[in-house]
């Protein structure tokens, strides 16, 4: 067997209370696209952060091209030809593309020769099909373009081991397709490409070999040609996954939520929602598809009374609730599962009892005279913990000590136990392990069966296809189109997400 470009042996890394990596072995050879597959929390990013010098392993050895190395900073790793494209880009927004690429390389003399730098970038760009405008400022670029800049930056620094952390999370399906072509091109050029991901179809479409991690441990390295999605799921999750079956079709009932030409600004004061119109009915799940940052946050905040609409109207069960305070919207029977679970949806330093009553402490249910009735609150909490199978060190412990999946169960249990009329769920399963995802899908479908209207925002198209009755595509604060899931076509949704409307025209 040929020599590995990267070999990590018996890597162990501990964080307080967590064993992030335990004796992990990982081998990559030049010329391959190697997927590092695992659920969230499996230790993929930790392992790669060790490889690129951000963390130091507690135990284990790293060999680069057969030579044992020990990195004390990312600079050492860069010098060994390791480049990483992080999930959150590290670009200086007011700088041009060329300036950003030059930054962090040793290629600059005392006097900057930008012409030479730009020429070099253009060569790289042509070679791998990474289109960029060297003179554009970074803030003018789309997310996809910024990602290309990050990739060129690592190549410019001479990386021949390229690591990408969940690169498709911010891309439309078409952009992802293009990225994969580039990655394969880079691999063919004799470089090693490592792709961190938890998405199985990505792995199957781009990787040559796949290493699976589970709970911080190495599970297997397999060749794509000799495996299939079914086997990979088993390796990743550790057991067979039952399919969540969508409940039988319902005829949706009356309109629960209606938005009419809503306009709203984002935190910076720029338009985030533009003439947004949408309705959600009883017994209906509407999935909002769209690349993150296209108005999703503002949409949910406007509905829940946490952000003012500049114009337009919002009706909940026929009642005009535009710009009403959050309290009234809660009282109208709206449940909200926010993106920021711990901090907004749950109070980290307060215990389960305190968190259970966050939405209902005003109501008579938990009051005895002017006082909170802690014994009935405890009773309720105990029954919810049991019903939703929430693992907790105790009802009196601060919730911040709980794991992500169980936090979301707690949040969901609180939001649905009062039989809401409308549920606004934002990335309800992001970052959760498979069994928690399954459970949460199950709860949402059960709520739909009970008659709730559900507006679900997800970055995972598979999730939307699985749960939703209707899909609305959001692009730059507008609805690009809505369609029943049964008639939806992935390609078309991808185009709509990129702002190309059905006639093939770019929206502006």
């Amino acid at each position: 067997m040929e020599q590995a470009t990267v070999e990590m042996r018996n890597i162990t890394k501990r964080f307080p209370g967590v064993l992030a990596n335990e004796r992990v072995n990982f081998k990559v050879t030049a010329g391959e696209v190697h997927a590092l597959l695992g659920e969230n929390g499996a230790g993929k990013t930790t392992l790669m952060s060790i490889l690129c010098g951000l963390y130091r392993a507690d135990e284990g050895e790293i060999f680069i091209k057969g030579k044992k190395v020990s990195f004390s900073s990312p600079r050492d790793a860069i010098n060994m030809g390791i480049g990483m494209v992080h999930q959150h880009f590290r670009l200086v927004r007011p700088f041009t593309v060329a300036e950003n690429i030059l930054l962090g390389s040793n290629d600059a003399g005392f006097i900057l020769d930008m012409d030479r730098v730009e020429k070099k970038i253009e060569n790289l760009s042509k070679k791998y099909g990474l289109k960029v405008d060297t003179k554009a400022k970074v803030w003018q670029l789309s997310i996809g373009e910024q990602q290309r800049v990050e990739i060129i930056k690592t190549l410019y620094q001479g990386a021949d081991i390229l690591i990408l952390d969940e690169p498709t999370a911010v891309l439309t399906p078409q952009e992802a397709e293009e990225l994969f072509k580039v990655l394969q091109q880079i691999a063919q050029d004799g470089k090693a490409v490592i792709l961190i991901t938890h998405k199985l179809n990505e792995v199957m479409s781009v990787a040559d070999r796949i290493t699976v991690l589970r709970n911080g441990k190495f599970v297997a390295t397999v060749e794509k040609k000799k495996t299939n999605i079914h086997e990979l799921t088993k390796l990743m999750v550790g057991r067979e996954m039952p399919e969540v079956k969508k409940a039988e079709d319902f005829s949706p009932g009356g309109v629960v939520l209606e938005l009419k030409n809503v306009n709203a600004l984002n935190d910076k004061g720029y338009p985030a929602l533009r003439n947004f119109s949408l309705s959600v009915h009883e017994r209906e799940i509407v999935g909002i598809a769209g690349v993150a940052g296209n108005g999703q946050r503002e949409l949910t905040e406007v509905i829940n009374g946490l952000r003012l609409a500049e114009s337009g109207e919002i009706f909940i069960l026929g009642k005009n609730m535009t710009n009403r305070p959050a309290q009234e919207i809660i009282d109208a029977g709206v449940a909200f599962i926010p993106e920021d679970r711990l901090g907004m949806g749950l109070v980290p330093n307060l215990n389960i009892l305190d968190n259970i009553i966050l939405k209902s402490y005003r109501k008579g249910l938990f009051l005895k005279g002017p006082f909170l009735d802690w014994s009935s609150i405890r009773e309720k909490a105990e029954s919810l913990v049991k019903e939703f199978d929430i693992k907790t060190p105790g009802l009196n412990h601060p919730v911040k000590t709980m794991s992500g999946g169980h936090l979301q169960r707690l949040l969901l249990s609180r939001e649905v136990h009062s039989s809401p009329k409308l549920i606004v769920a934002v990335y309800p399963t992001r970052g959760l392990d498979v069994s928690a995802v399954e459970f949460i899908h199950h709860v949402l479908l059960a709520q739909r069966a009970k008659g709730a209207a559900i507006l679900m925002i997800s970055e995972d198209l598979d999730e939307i296809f699985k749960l939703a009755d209707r899909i609305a595509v959001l692009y730059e604060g507008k609805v690009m189109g809505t369609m029943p899931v049964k008639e939806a076509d992935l390609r078309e949704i991808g185009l709509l997400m990129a702002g190309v409307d059905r006639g093939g025209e770019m929206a502006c």
Partner: protein
Amino acid sequence: MLSVFEKKKRILRFERKLTISPLSYLIVLVISILLALAVGAIFIRINSFNPLEVYQFMFESSFGSAYGISETVVKAIPLMLAGLGVALAFRMLLWNIGAEGQIYMGAFAATAIALYLPRLPAGIMITAMLLAGFAGGAIWSLIPGIMRARAGVNEIITTLMFNYIAILWVNYLVFGPWSDPASFNQPITPKFPVSAMLPTLPGSRIHLGIFFGLVAAIVLYLVLTHTRWGYEVRVTGESESAAKYAGINITRNIMLVMLISGGLAGLAGMAEVAGVLGRLQQNISPGYGYTAILVAILAKLNPLAVVIVSFLFSSLLVGGYAAQTIGVPAAIVSTLQGAILFFVLAGEFMARFRLRYVRRGD
């Protein structure tokens, strides 16, 4: 986790805990006091005194006699009331450092009642002075509260600045319009009528203010743990975005909390003039409002703990006054206070870490 040193097979390792128990906090507090005393000993030694003798003398002065205990209780009253106010505001992350000024305004308002309505019968007089004292402090903190709630003005700066206004306002009154003509230009007002004095425990200077303090502590504790409004305060203090999400009216609560916070400090001022001094004068507070911040922080903003910590700090004050009589510099009290705070903050940080000696790979 941090490996501090490595031997062949075993390593010493720090592990971080997310929470610390009340018991370990108590241990931290005791150790901190001992360490602070050790630091204080150095300074006492530099001043050519025997630290052990000085500490013994300080302890005896504050606890060793009926008079000492009475003085300790008397000085704990303003610390307790103002400390409760500070603790409430800090609970909601409102950094009200204006308790000193609020004490002065409470004292001013209570004095106004005693001076302008001297004929009120005792019960009504005390009630009116209580309300006035509370209102004086409350208005003084409500103004920064409104500015913070409505316009986002930083309350640290406004409450601090308001201290100077309040202190100078009282100075103006006692030197000028309210100055006692019989005092030959001393900065004091005339003596209050007897009806305006808080009753004292026979044979001591301990006055009814101790009752205000204890009741306020218990009420505040119950409000925070058992009422809807207290719940709102706790949620808002922990996470403002969660509070908004829950539909809590944060603007209103900021103003309400600031109002009550200042009101409690105002009561401290009222208790000082009506319970101890019997008149308004210059320097009615030797920095009770600032010490109250330390009290609140060391009590971890728990109202019941504020009661205990205020006794600790008042005994320091009383002991410090006594130490001055034998020539120890007055600064020793501030030194000890500061050192205790320093060690508690450091100790609390360290209590979050557990040092373990483990085999590699464990």
